[in-house]
């Protein structure tokens, strides 16, 4: 093994480990340094810097791109927790830009307009870590083989409707259980079906989990939504529009953080769910024209 290959393996391990440190936490979308401070104060374990929350991206339409680096730097200066930002699927130059400004994690995200309708970014070419969305095990493992060091469900962002995140998490976990129950000699065919290497399928077979941390994202709007995703096996949650599009963002953010920690404690979740003001109004998936989850398979 060359020194360069060793460095790449170490970098992948370190990037997976940063995701491990985020476990049990809530990553919040923020659009200004002020919102970032509110999120940190409320207990976010990281923030996602973006110009518009997904609900507003939906409302505005048009092409949605990586945020202004100056705006991201403003957020990096405002908080001490990790700062993530989104790039368009396949837009490796946007990713180079974010690496150049020392971002902590890149989200190659279906929330933005895809820049490439075939190829995802070769994430192994970067030192900075990537999280990617997935709605089933095949998508998750394909993103991991491209170098993603963290996975999240796609859900349906900007809707306040948790149904898609639930179905993605259930789909992934059902497929994992199926692989665990397979005979060793059945794994090659499964790898072919999923279009991934047999080593990744073998890992899932042996460990009953993905080789990276798996968060829930897309449509989480209440403390109970967060706890639901955790009980379904998520290792943490992303909350996008759910906080800053609600009536009382500070209180709601705190409550979602508390419920993510105490996801198995209904009495605590009840206490945290009281008097939170209005949740984001939301739209359900049958009312929207654009299914972001269909982007980037």
């Amino acid at each position, binding site marked *: 093994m060359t020194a360069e290959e060793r460095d790449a393996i170490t970098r992948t391990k*370190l990037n997976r480990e940063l995701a491990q*440190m985020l476990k*049990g936490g809530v990553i919040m979308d923020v659009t200004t340094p002020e919102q970032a401070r509110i999120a*940190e104060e409320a207990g976010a374990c990281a923030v996602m810097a973006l110009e518009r929350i997904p609900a507003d991206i939906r409302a505005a339409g048009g092409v949605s791109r990586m945020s202004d680096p100056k705006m991201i730097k403003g957020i990096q200066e405002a908080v001490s927790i990790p*700062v993530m930002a989104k790039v368009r699927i396949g837009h490796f130059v946007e990713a180079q830009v974010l690496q150049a400004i020392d971002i902590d994690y890149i989200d190659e995200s279906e929330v933005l307009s895809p820049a490439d309708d075939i190829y995802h970014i070769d994430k192994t070419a970067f030192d900075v870590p990537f999280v990617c969305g997935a709605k089933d095990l095949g998508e998750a493992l394909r993103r991991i083989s491209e170098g993603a060091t963290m996975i999240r469900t796609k859900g349906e962002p900007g809707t306040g409707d948790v149904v898609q995140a639930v179905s993605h998490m259930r789909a992934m976990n059902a497929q994992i259980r199926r692989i665990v129950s397979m005979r060793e000699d059945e794994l090659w065919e499964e790898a072919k079906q999923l279009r991934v290497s047999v080593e990744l399928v073998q890992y899932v077979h042996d460990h009953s989990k993905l080789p990276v941390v798996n968060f829930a994202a897309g449509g989480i709007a209440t403390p109970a939504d967060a706890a639901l995703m955790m009980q379904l096996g998520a290792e943490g949650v992303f909350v996008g529009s759910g906080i800053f599009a609600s009536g009382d963002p500070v209180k709601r953010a705190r409550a979602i953080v508390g419920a993510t920690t105490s996801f198995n404690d209904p009495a605590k979740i009840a206490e945290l769910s009281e008097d939170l003001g209005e949740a984001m109004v939301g739209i359900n998936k049958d009312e929207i024209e654009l299914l972001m989850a269909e982007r980037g398979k």
Partner: protein
Amino acid sequence: MTTAVLALQGAFAEHESRLKELGETVIELRDSDDCALAFDRLILPGGESTVQSKLLKERGMDTLLRRKIEEGMPTFGTCAGMILLAQHVDNGQGGDTQSGALATFPACVRRNAYGRQLGSFHTVDTFADMQVPMTFIRAPYLDSVEDSVSVLSRVDGNIVAARWKNQLVTAFHPEVDSDTSVHEYFLRM
């Protein structure tokens, strides 16, 4: 013996795995009620110290755990856990130092001392006369310690592991590597 792992946020499951490999009984602390359970040792895991501090205080766990540590319970803080234990915390943004949520370890810790994720690194170095793998993730280090503190490890001149009485702190994450020698050291304390 039973070791309690603070399970508010972060890499607590990794500590639990290492401890179970060493035959320890493990419980998780998520709320003030859990602090009343019987346990002999305490581990404060890595994660985000701001989140853990906030939840410790909000749930009234800080006072309960501080008392146990001050009464002599062997306690081990890794990364964020080291920040919770430190009496002084330098956020690296200028301004005054603050105190950690538990503030029982007489030292000043500098948060994010190696910068952002691109500054994270892995090395093998000396910890209390043993060579151990050390993984630093957006890690802190100790800027200064009181004279009574034993320094157990320095990397590039910075203090990354130290012990004071019943408390052990490391800036790195022994829980993410398969080597269990740091945990074994803690269990002998």
